[in-house]
């Protein structure tokens, strides 16, 4: 008898297990199937900083959350409807997030006395009634996998390791996901190891079949595809999108891309990705340290490359002096900071927005640097191109502030029309640009474009333009060393004016205010766009009015910012830090903005933000 299929609007699933259980892979596969089915989705991987924390411990729990729906969604979801817990540690670490009534699939094979004790369970929660308010599905995942793989020519250990595929098969059945993609994926991945491939496929199918036959699951669920714009889609993480943005910028500008980088979580994936694309003229150099990474990039920029350095907060601290040099020499340089929990080593694998003020002010002297912050994993592509555009056009270092949430989170991406990408044709200086009093034609490396205030980019190899520049203050125009007080004052103000002027070359701040008469504006920047949007949606669904505006350009702010802020009675600024944007906004616009903060290493929950927003609305 076929089981009944119950329609749902949206589902949040969290796969949780030991670091070695393959939860990230399982989550990725489920995501791919879900994406190709046409749901809108958003993901949140969450893994420990240790590569292999001791097995079975709370510290070693790795999880992957996926939110998918038949409508557009903005976040990986607040609370999972379904938790798949591969061991007691995974249950214990995640159970508090599951709302009463939620489903929990537990791998009973791992619930030995010892494993329970390891994480401080005195009795088995599956049996002692402590999970009564949940719908618990106790399944012997490991032994059923081993059973299904009897007769395969693989070790018991390999058989056991396939249990994540059994779980994936079961979940695919439960939510009526297509399975072809996973079969194809496994075939590619294990093509060279036919035994392992056969085992994985068999485990996957066994899990699927188990769902169909077991009485434990009376129904399966279906989440219809979400209405999405016509087009070709793929699923993409922020770091991959960002990498592609850099490759695209190289192609659009006609410049070779040079990445100087030192491995650091969560930015290394950009180094890995870009190192695959030499075909596109992308050169990557794994430097001896963070300082050398940016140094090599700056050297490449002097030579006319589209120069990039990638890192996370601690790396920015090391690169600060070189960023100051790039400000002083006025050379294009894209500095990518995938923010993580700080200070110091902090929480390497968790997300935070706490490097904004470091990006703004973390240098000696007056050293303004434009700051761009992508709003979603997909936006990392366009934001990277925008960073390259500003850097090359204004001959300035530019910060691109992503974070761990955007870097590893994924969502469907409607592939862009490449012909519509911004044209970034670069014009290097080719000849003299100044006539001295005696009529001699000379090249002045610091004679600026009156519109953009950018100086000419004259690269070595260009005859007649030989010049020397450095970190010492330069005379306006000639670029020669100058200690003249008035010149220094002028140069400091001019560098600032150049960056400030970019405000006229970027999109105005967009305000989403459906009724047009909200009293409260929620203002954010960077990766909180999704959670804030989802929070606002809840508030509106509850019948209240709220406006949302979100910065993508944090320095300079868009030209209409002040006008927008002054339109609202109250401005709320949620941030994953202790109030960095709010400090900038308050000081610059004298707006009594309300700061709301959370630094748990995790993105905001929509429900939490909705509550905050509603409180402010009620207080007006």
């Amino acid at each position, binding site marked *: 008898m076929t089981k009944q299929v119950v329609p749902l609007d949206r589902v949040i699933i969290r796969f949780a297990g030991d670091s070695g259980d393959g939860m990230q892979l399982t989550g990725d596969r489920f995501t791919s199937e879900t*994406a190709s089915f046409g749901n809108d989705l958003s993901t949140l991987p969450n893994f420990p900083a240790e590569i292999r924390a001791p097995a079975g411990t709370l510290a070693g729990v790795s999880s992957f959350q996926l939110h998918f729906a038949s409508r557009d969604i903005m976040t990986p979801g607040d609370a999972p409807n379904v938790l798949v817990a591969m061991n007691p540690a995974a249950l214990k670490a995640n159970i508090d997030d599951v709302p009463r009534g939620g489903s929990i699939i537990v791998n009973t094979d791992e619930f030995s006395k010892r494993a329970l004790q390891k994480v401080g369970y005195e009795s088995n929660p599956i049996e002692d009634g402590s999970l009564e308010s949940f719908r618990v599905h106790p399944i012997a995942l490991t032994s059923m996998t081993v059973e299904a793989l009897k007769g395969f020519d693989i070790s018991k250990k390999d058989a056991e390791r396939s249990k994540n595929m059994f779980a994936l098969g079961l979940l695919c059945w439960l939510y009526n996901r297509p399975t072809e993609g996973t079969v194809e994926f496994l075939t590619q991945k294990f093509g060279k190891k036919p035994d392992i491939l056969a085992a994985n496929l068999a485990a996957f199918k066994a899990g699927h079949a188990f769902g169909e036959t077991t009485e434990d699951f009376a129904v399966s669920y279906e989440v219809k595809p979400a209405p999405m714009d016509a087009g070709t889609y793929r699923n993409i993480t922020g770091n991959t999108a960002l990498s592609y943005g850099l490759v695209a910028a190289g192609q659009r500008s006609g410049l070779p891309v040079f990445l100087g980088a030192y491995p650091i979580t969560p930015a290394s994936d950009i180094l890995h990705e870009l190192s695959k694309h030499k075909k596109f003229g992308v050169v990557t150099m794994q430097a001896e340290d963070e300082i*050398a990474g940016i140094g090599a990039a700056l050297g490449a920029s002097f*030579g006319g490359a589209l120069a990039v350095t990638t890192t996370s907060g601690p790396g920015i601290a090391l690169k600060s002096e070189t960023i100051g040099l790039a400000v002083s020499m006025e050379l294009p340089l894209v500095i990518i900071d995938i923010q993580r929990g700080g200070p110091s080593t902090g929480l390497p694998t968790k997300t935070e927005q706490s490097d904004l003020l470091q990006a703004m002010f973390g240098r000696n002297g007056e050293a303004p640097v434009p700051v761009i912050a992508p709003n979603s994993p997909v936006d990392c592509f366009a934001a990277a191109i925008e960073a390259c555009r500003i850097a090359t056009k204004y001959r300035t270092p530019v910060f691109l502030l992503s974070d761990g949430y955007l870097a590893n989170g994924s969502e469907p991406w409607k592939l862009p029309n490449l012909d519509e990408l911004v044209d970034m044709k670069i014009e290097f200086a080719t000849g003299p640009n100044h006539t001295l009093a005696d009529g001699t034609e000379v090249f002045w490396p610091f004679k600026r474009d009156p519109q953009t205030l950018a100086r000419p980019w004259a690269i070595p190899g260009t005859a007649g333009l030989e010049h020397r*520049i450095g970190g010492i203050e330069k005379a306006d125009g000639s670029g020669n060393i100058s200690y003249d007080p008035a010149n220094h004052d002028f140069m400091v103000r001019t560098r600032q004016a150049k960056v400030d002027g970019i405000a006229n070359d970027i999109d105005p701040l967009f305000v989403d205010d459906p009724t047009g008469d909200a009293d409260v504006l929620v203002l954010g920047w960077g990766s909180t766009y999704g959670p804030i949007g989802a929070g606002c949606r809840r508030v509106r669904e509850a019948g209240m009015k709220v406006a949302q505006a979100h910065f993508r350009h944090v320095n300079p702010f868009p030209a209409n910012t002040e006008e927008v802020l002054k339109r609202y009675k109250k401005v709320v600024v949620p941030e994953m830090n202790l109030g960095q944007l709010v400090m900038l906004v308050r000081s610059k616009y004298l707006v009594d903005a309300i700061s709301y903060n959370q630094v748990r290493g995790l993105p905001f929950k929509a429900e939490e933000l909705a509550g905050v927003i509603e409180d402010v609305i009620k207080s007006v």
Partner: protein
Amino acid sequence: MSDTIKFPSLALVPSADEPQSAKEFKSDQEVRWCPGCGDYAILAAVQGFMPELGLKRENIVWVSGIGCSSRFPYYMNTYGLHTIHGRAPAIATGLSTTRKDLSVWVVTGDGDALSIGGNHLIHAMRRNVNLKILLFNNRIYGLTKGQYSPTSEQGKITKSTPMGSLDYPFNPVSLALGAEATFVARTMDSDRAHLTSVLRAAAEHDGTALVEIYQNCPIFNDGVFDGLKDGEEKEQHIIRLEHGEPIVFGAERENGVIRAADGSIQTAKVADVGLDSVLVHDAHANDPGLAFALSRLSNSENLDQTPMGIFRSVERPTYDTLLRDQVAQAQSSGAPDLAALIAGNDTWTIS
């Protein structure tokens, strides 16, 4: 042109159309070192030597860090970068690897290269980036007014070490050899002919060339190399290294370097040991052992037997070339397709 054959490391750098003069390499900037500073002599030697390379001026870049010597690029009428303390090798590496048509020179000092920039220096050498690094060693911090440096002798009394410095000094040549450098040489500001010959060999070398140049700082460390400059003494103290030649020294070439019974390197009277026992210098030896042993004959404490010249000059593919080869290999399989890259292997269509 013959020049490009002569200098394999510069084969990809365009040659000048006309013969050049030293004057062409002088920039319009006033040179601002202290009177009597050894840097003047080095600058003059470099400017005098540059025309020999026969390269287009616009394809030459001088990169420096911070310190007295790091003002050097301002005085060269080429492209130049005066960067930040210790970072010149890193910055020059990015430039050199992305621009095969440039001849990139780094000027640095003992503080810049060996203290704050030590990491970049050793990694540039092990990578064998096509850089010529001139390390002006005056064994003192000049620009910050006279603190001891990582090459100062132990016990040095300076403003920051009134009771004498405690740290043991680096031997830059030993350090470079230990860091897998493919070309290591030592020369001196006051010996223009020798300096020029070493610069020529460095320019010729394909890969990183580390040239230590003893440089007198008359203001803060005057005379530390006098034993190597004084006419009478110097012949006793300088061991000139010539590839393929027996390592002999002294006014009458009466001393030689030998391998003692215990395997160590020592000096002896040629008359006592016989010329056959004197070691023949082999700068091209793959094993850096002898070069290292030679480098240990002198140190900051004692310059009584100081080898000068090219310790090591061996061939090893450069980082720049290897990197360009990889790019070429990646590009050999047809034109890049951005749309295909972005789409990946797993797309779906909504109509």
